[in-house]
């Protein structure tokens, strides 16, 4: 009965974790090295600090694809077992 709610919570937290930017930007800026790097920060750095707009766009598309796969993957998992 709670399967769908758990699925929704799982999807939201997974996507939110993937999109964390503010905290990392403020606290570590991806460092030391690349130890705490997240996709959002990498895109920001590539596009607006290094001028590598092409690789930033590619990263953006990759990130979008990952989010869609995650969302629909979790959904498929939940729906299949629910019936």
């Amino acid at each position, binding site marked *: 009965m709670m399967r769908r709610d758990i699925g929704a919570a799982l999807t939201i937290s997974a996507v939110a974790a993937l*999109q964390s930017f503010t905290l990392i930007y403020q606290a570590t800026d991806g460092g030391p090295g690349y130890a705490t790097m997240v*996709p959002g920060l990498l895109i*920001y750095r590539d596009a607006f600090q290094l001028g590598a707009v092409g690789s930033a766009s590619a990263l953006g*598309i990759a990130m979008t694809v990952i989010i869609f796969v995650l969302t629909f993957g979790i959904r498929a998992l939940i729906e299949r077992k629910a019936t």
Partner: protein
Amino acid sequence: MLSRTERTVCLIILMAAAVVTLYPLITLVSTALSGSASSGGISFSWHMSLTGFSYAWRNGDFSRSMLNTAIVTVAVVVISTVIAVMAGYSVALAKPPGARWLLYAAVFGFMLPVEALIVPWYYQFSAFGIVNTYWSMIVPQAAQSIAFGTFWMYVAFRSVPRSLSESARLDGASSLSLLWRILVPNVAPAVKTMAALVFLWTWNAFLLPLVMVSNSSLYTVTVGLSTFTGAHFNNYSALAAGSCLAALPVVVVYLFAQRSFIAGLFAGSLVE
């Protein structure tokens, strides 16, 4: 029915979660009120002072950045609420040809991460010459809020019994008066919750204003706080006070909206 042990375990988990959430908040407020500029750590003391707040207010240009954020947030909330209510009505009840695709577009629109959109937004807006204006922050934020709000209102409007809009139709109500006089009051908790969520997201938006605005007189409070943090990193009391100032409006809105917030969240999840 939960057994005694289950209930105890539940309570312990919830209390642990509450401690984890509240402890940083309490240290934040106590540091802000401690007023000791030189403190290199977090300490509790009964001595309260507002020097941290006044220092942050004077040196962080918070009056300016709060005003900027308020302008952007109010614009986004008003624009996206009006459009999302109408779009939600359209896809849920009026159903013009292609309404289905509008709904898919809305779902797609709010699933796209800001990080992926920020690059095209920035370069397109540079071409339009609207970077470093309020519009460069309002338009993208409103667009994503409309996408989310359309889906949100679609779910809300579908829960309204069909007979209600049919009888209003028989009484001769036009589409517009049916929507604003009959349907919207019926889904008021959902509308309020949506507005509160959009307020929260817009107020807390960081990446978008960070990229779009380089003119410090247009900084929103999140970006202003970030530069303030960089410049005054050893004045813990002022930093904590600045964070409190930035967070305060969200807390106030949340407190006011809380009741319909919770009602709206449940209304959203129970609809089939």
